């Protein structure tokens, strides 16, 4: 199994396509950081203009933590598309070029192949998020420095003191990994049914876009189905950036406002991953290889 995983990782990282996502993320984050470096204060003033009459801000509003939060909000919608490029190609891509039948004539079981391939896709996803964390968090801290993080929620502002932020990012990126693994598992499942890569890649992206739209629209009929869509739970990483307040309305450092929501969403995403990979394994074990 370990050899098989090594082989799968070797194949992933030898392919030029793999690096598209890393380059795209670096490019997008670089552009956002450049824009905010050049004209960030104007952007922050514009965003905060409606609350500036009620509050006075002291300190560096545009800091590395805020830049990272902005980047996460913008990119975590698009990263699934990049993950689909690799995950949805894992089985179908090999079926398309014909190497799948050669693999299946080796002394390895189909279950091992599926597990190794999904683990390799998961490692790729992890590395993509680590890459994103390095660029979005550490490079932003280096470029913009650190200070308290102020986030505008729908009905209120949250201020997180700068010594209470880093662990929240660790949690948020960890949760984002679960969300992205769900996307990878979906792409992987669709990949098992197809004999070329385009179909499962487009299907994965379409499902993500479709479900995301349903998850975010505030139309009552859609709101009823929203708890059942995995895309609704993929954005629960934002709950790491909210904290409890006591009776005096004083923020309690190191707390999470809605911990149960995070835990529940995490379990729902894990259940989706297990379901998608389980079905992929079930189908693949019985699949006739005709290509």
């Amino acid at each position: 199994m370990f050899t098989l995983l090594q082989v799968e990782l070797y194949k992933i990282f030898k392919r030029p396509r793999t690096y598209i996502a890393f380059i795209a993320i670096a490019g997008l984050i670089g552009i956002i950081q450049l824009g905010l470096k050049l004209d960030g204060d104007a952007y922050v003033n514009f965003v905060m203009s409606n609350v500036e009459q009620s509050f006075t801000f002291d300190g560096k509003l545009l800091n590395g933590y805020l830049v990272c939060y902005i980047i996460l909000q913008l990119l975590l919608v698009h990263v699934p598309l990049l993950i689909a490029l690799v995950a949805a190609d894992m089985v179908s891509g090999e079926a398309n070029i014909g190497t799948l039948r050669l693999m299946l004539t080796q002394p390895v079981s189909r279950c091992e192949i599926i597990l190794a391939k999904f683990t390799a896709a998961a490692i790729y996803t992890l590395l993509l998020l680590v890459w994103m964390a390095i660029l979005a968090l550490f490079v932003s801290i280096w470029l913009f420095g650190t200070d308290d993080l102020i986030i505008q929620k729908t009905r209120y502002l949250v201020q997180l003191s700068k010594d209470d932020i880093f662990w929240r990012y660790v949690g948020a990126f960890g949760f984002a990994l679960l969300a992205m693994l769900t996307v990878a598992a979906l792409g992987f499942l669709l990949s098992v049914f197809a004999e070329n890569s385009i179909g499962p890649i487009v299907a994965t992206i379409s499902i993500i876009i479709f479900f995301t739209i349903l998850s975010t629209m505030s139309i009552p009929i859609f709101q009823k189905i929203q708890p059942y869509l995995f895309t609704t739970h993929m954005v629960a990483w934002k709950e790491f950036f909210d904290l409890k307040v006591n009776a005096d309305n004083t923020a309690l450092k190191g707390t999470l406002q809605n911990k149960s929501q995070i835990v529940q969403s995490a379990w729902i995403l894990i259940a989706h991953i297990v379901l998608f990979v389980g079905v992929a394994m079930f189908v693949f074990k019985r699949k006739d290889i005709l290509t």
Partner: protein
Amino acid sequence: MLLLKHMEPIIQVKNLSKQFGDIVAVNDLSFTVPAGSVYGFLGQNGAGKSTTIRMLLSLITPTEGNIRFFGLPLQQHRKEIFKNIGAIIERPDLYGYLSAYDNLKMFACLNGMHPTHLQLMNQLEQVGLADRAKNKVKTFSQGMKQRLGIGIALIHNPSLIILDEPTNGLDPQGIADIRRLIVQLSKEQQKTILLSSHLLSEIEQMATHILIIDKGKKIIADSAAALFNPAETIVEIETTNNIASLAILKASKWQPHLQLNRGPNIFLKMHHDQIPDFNRALFNLNIQLLMLQPRHSLEDYFLQVTANSNSDTLILNH
């Protein structure tokens, strides 16, 4: 390495069937591949050869029947069995973005090997690709890919080699190289080889045993020696006037050899050694010959049994 029981066949297939919806691709097929044989698996395109081979390699699940390799049932001992099998199914599709060396190393590792650089280079040398070891496979010709595919199939020194249409898409030199390699593997290394083809000429040059299938059913299975019986050679002749020539032959000592109503040309059955005498006789009888072509009885047999199959894909000419 699996220890083969004395006289245990390498492959035993019993009542194997595969149905895709309403289409029966393989129908109640049974055969046995003896150890050390080059087993030719012959049939027209679409006869069910590739489906059968894919079932042998567990790429396709049979609808019915069972398969045993080295005396062990495939379903229960797949991994153990596959450590002793090297296979190429149709064309060897490899990872184009990897080098020949990397492709070979990867599949060696999947077979549980930890190959040294020397081992890998020796294997590439054996298939004539040592000088292209570091080149990406996407730059290779079809023949080179085929040779690399064979190198991969042999890297773990399997005792059984399964080759499905191994000369497809190759130029004459490539075909000759593959044939030479198969004969060498069989004679010098005592490998058992299951070789499928729609080319009778290819099978006849290498096979010690032959199985012919048509429309998924077994037509005949026997040793090549029995099937290519020289006493049963069919000779087809075309003359400047076939009707007059036939009348002359009917009145000659060759009359018992005539095979009537077989087509526009004249057919006779005789021992292969009689062909020079027959040729002289035609000259003496003043029959002006345009063409004389000897055929094995197998070819003749095959023509008969597949006469109604509306396919022209079985290449019978040498």
